């Protein structure tokens, strides 16, 4: 008979999620990314519908209605919405071409989509994911050659919205306050953050060793969630955190390289978008645990314990691999070894030959 304990239950559950993530990755890798262009609009409408339904029916966790349950499964529609919106923005930008510079024809329709999705997510209230959706949308608009005046205007316009949400949700204000107060003051307002930083510091250069984290046992309950980076820092030290960062840097570099050599505008935008989402989440999560950004509940991609994020991020990376498989980076056997595009540096040379 096996042993079923609390920790094993979490591990088994997580293993299941990783398995589902791998399936999602494979699906993303197999489907031709150009297909999505036709479906991004229905997808984003569906996402908005989900968000609306969740808002009405969703389960409440720690004061926020973020989950939608189907039988035994629960999904975070905001994760789906994030990617649906991103894909749709890529469709819009790639079809409109230079019309993007026109406020009424190009810019305004996009702002309506962004506004609806981000607005609903903010209302959940999920301040952190909402802000990330706005941030990623801004990145997409920026890269799509939208006019600076439009961008600045939008940014300026979104500030009142964020402020209103922040003011009406006490926990958001509290977090921002404690951030401004000086997060490393040792005060009691931001206990988790302070304990996370102690974890990093306690790790020092080489770390305390695998599984030896005491912060996890005594001071950082549920550290397998958003504060997992701090445990990495404590157990594996500066060496470990640098290695960790290097992995995400690698993902970013490869992602942008894929974007550069993508066959069409849609693929290029998609590659930039997906790469930005993964990289920004990692950086923001790290920034939060290190106290350089206000505390938010954002997961570390691929690492934090959380099914929805893992599932959708894996799928998105699968799409990235599909784009890569169709580029000139792999002229001879485009679909045979798409995974290699993430791992092999040496292929750069061959690219130049072709």
């Amino acid at each position, binding site marked *: *008979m096996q042993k079923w304990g609390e920790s094993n239950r979490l591990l088994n559950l997580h293993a299941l999620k990783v398995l589902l993530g791998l399936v999602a990755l494979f699906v993303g890798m197999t489907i031709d990314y150009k297909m999505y262009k036709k479906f991004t609009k229905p997808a984003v409408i569906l996402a908005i519908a989900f968000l609306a339904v969740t808002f009405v029916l969703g389960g409440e966790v720690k004061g926020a209605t973020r989950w939608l349950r189907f039988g035994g499964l629960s999904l975070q529609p905001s994760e789906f919405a994030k990617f649906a919106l991103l894909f749709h923005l890529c469709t819009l930008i790639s079809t409109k071409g230079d019309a993007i510079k026109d406020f009424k024809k190009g810019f305004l329709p996009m702002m309506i989509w962004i506004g609806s999705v981000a607005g609903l997510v903010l209302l959940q209230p999920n301040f952190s994911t909402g802000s990330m959706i706005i941030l990623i949308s801004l990145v997409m608009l920026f890269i799509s050659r939208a006019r600076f005046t439009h961008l600045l205007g939008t940014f300026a316009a979104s500030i009142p919205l964020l402020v209103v949400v922040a003011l009406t949700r006490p926990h958001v204000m509290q977090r921002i306050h404690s951030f401004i107060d000086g997060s490393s003051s*040792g005060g009691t307002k931001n206990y988790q953050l302070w304990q996370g930083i*102690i974890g990093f510091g*306690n790790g*020092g250069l080489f770390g305390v060793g695998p599984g030896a984290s005491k912060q996890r046992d005594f001071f950082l309950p549920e550290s397998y969630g958003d504060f997992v980076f701090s445990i990495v*820092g404590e157990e594996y030290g500066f060496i470990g955190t640098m290695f960790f960062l290097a992995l995400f840097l690698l993902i970013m570099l490869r992602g942008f390289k894929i974007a550069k050599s993508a066959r069409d505008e849609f693929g290029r935008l998609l590659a930039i978008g997906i790469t930005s989402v993964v990289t920004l989440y990692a950086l923001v999560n790290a920034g939060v645990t290190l106290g350089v950004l206000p505390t938010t509940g954002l997961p570390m991609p691929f690492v934090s314990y959380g099914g929805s994020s893992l599932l959708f991020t894996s799928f998105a990376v699968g799409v990235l691999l599909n784009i890569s498989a169709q580029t000139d980076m792999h002229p001879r056997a485009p679909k045979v070894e798409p995974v290699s595009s993430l791992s092999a540096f040496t292929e750069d040379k061959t690219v130049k030959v072709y």
Partner: protein
Amino acid sequence: MLFKKNKQENSKAPQKGNASQVDAKAEAGGEKQFASRFLALKVGFALFFVLIAGRLAQIQIMEASKYQATAKKQYEQAVVLPAVRGNIYDRNSNVVASNTMNVSFAADPKIIDKDAERIAEKFSEVFNKPKSYYLSKLRTTNSSGTPKRFVWLERRAKPELGKRIEAMRLEGIVPINEAKRLYHYDEVAGTLLGFTDIDSKGISGIELQLDEYLRGKNGSVIMQRDGLGGARPSVDYPRIEPFDGNDVTLTLDLAYQSIVEEELKKGVEHNKADAALAVMLNPKTGEILALATSPGINPNGVNASDINASRNRVVTDMFEPGSVFKVVTASAAYENKLFTPDKRFNAEHGVMNVALPRGKMRQIKDTHAYDWISFQEAIELSSNIVMAKASELIGAERLYREARDFGFGVMTGVDLPGEVKGRLKKPNEWSGTTLQTLAYGYEVGVTPLQIALAYAAVANKGVMMKPYIVSKVRTKDDEEILAQKPQTVRKVISPETANLLTQAFEGVVERGTGKDVRIAGMRIAGKTGTSKKYVDGKYTEGSYTASFVGFFPVEDPQVVCLVMMDNPRAAGYYGGITSGPVFHAIAERIINSTGRFTKTPTAKEKERNNNGITVPDVRTLQINIASKILEGQGLKSELFGKGDVVVRQIPEPGKRLEKGDVVKLVLNGEETNTTANGAVVVPELKGMSLRRAINRLVVDDFDVKVRGSGVVVSQYPAAGQKVNAGATVQIICEPRAVTAALY
């Protein structure tokens, strides 16, 4: 650097791909703008990376020592709030293991500082230990020389002593309630349950197997010095509440378990065996009702010498089963319809030579000489020769497959730690005699549980159930988080074959080698087994494993029980007179003590009761007198062991027998070594286990001096020398080499 390179390439690459679709000129302008914005994005991301890396360097390298100090301070102030370990219950909800709460005392030396003398004095008064003991604890320092922030002064103090300390309200002393594991029935089921270490972590048995469930999760609280100098839970840190362990319910029946253990212990004493074990199952469900080893352990006070006894040998050890394995041979014959139980074989008058390749011969012997007997009689009388002959008719492949179907050579999957799968060789690994010897249970390694399970399958009309001992795991809030239900493993044999086997096994008890097991009014089926122990590469005369496995009532089997005795030496070593009587005693007590069984004497038994002979008590009598008394009653006697005085008789006095039945007389032990003038002959001890050697020497009142442990390698005085009674014999032992494989 990287980004610069990208920029150069960027202006060319996408152009190639898209030139045909879009107006080239506009595209060129657009691409230029795109390239610059893309570059800006990359620079932005790069700056973000640099920011994170810089912050990490600041925290983890530049300011690391500051945080390490903070972390250390925190840990030293952290006091674990221990979770209470879950209880263990038997099938009738009797608490088998629970906890008593004891109070432990911790101190923060830094807070106490000036008070150390006084506190040490108080503790010394209450606990009767020297003052210096506590003082040194209170003055422990870290490697850096600063006082420690947390030391244990006393752990698990007796409640009355604890109360006295608590009443003193000493500042800086933190009382912490700690649970101590309590096993309500001491050594009953001790080996099965196992035990925990001082931190309540499971070390063996059920405690180990279900540790994750039972353990729970400790909480913690951070202590802080308040203005008055006392240690108080800090308000700045959350108190992490402990999460108590889950309760486990076993399939074990405590009443059966204690009966089994008492009888097993008696059996070990009577037979001067090294050890014994028993396992009892419900054949219809696979539930383990009792499981015992003797000697066992008392988990309430485990010491180092118990290490060996803490192994649950029912699943961790394998042995050669001997005749109890004949269930496989008979099944293979019946299942393949090769012959019927009444087929007659020539039993060769007790000795048969089997030709080996390369011209060698091997002898197969029976305990009693028979000539022509039926196959069923061969099972009842346990003839090895007939089994060997039958096996030749069955053939290697069929015999092997039958053994495999019965689960030999495969783990049963029982929920107990340390199970081994035994060893069943494939036909292509067989030696020249395996076909014959496997038929009566040699050249195969099995666990006791596997044997019990095979007979359970016969009792359950051929269907084997998966054995299990944990039926339920519940949280403290009574939420069921695990429930095991009976699980079928496979149909091993047809109901017809099971029926034929049951008839034969009932014959074993009625007429055959297992007659001592008979209980009037209860139909019992079973099989005896005896095997020479294979020690250090050869079969050893005088070293045996004796077993009896059986089930009852035959009409509707409720209980399967295997009793096995390791190296019985008092008298005969046969399963029928060593393990059989233990089985008999267990069965009789279980049948009489519970309302589950009804006795219905058969006509023959009634006849026996009315007109039979009451067995007289001949114990403590000289052999010749005892035999005469029995003869006078019309009974025969059979002697077991050496010596001249009867110490035990089977059946016991008062039982009813028929005219001409045999009463087995067990004599007072090994022949006396005392010579006429009071000198004693030193016995040969070499090769014996230490325990056995000591037992042997104690019999003749020698004093023993031991060096080393394991197996006796030399002795002084040497074997055969005559010394005065009560002399000292020195034995030198060496650890036994890892037990050689069985083959």
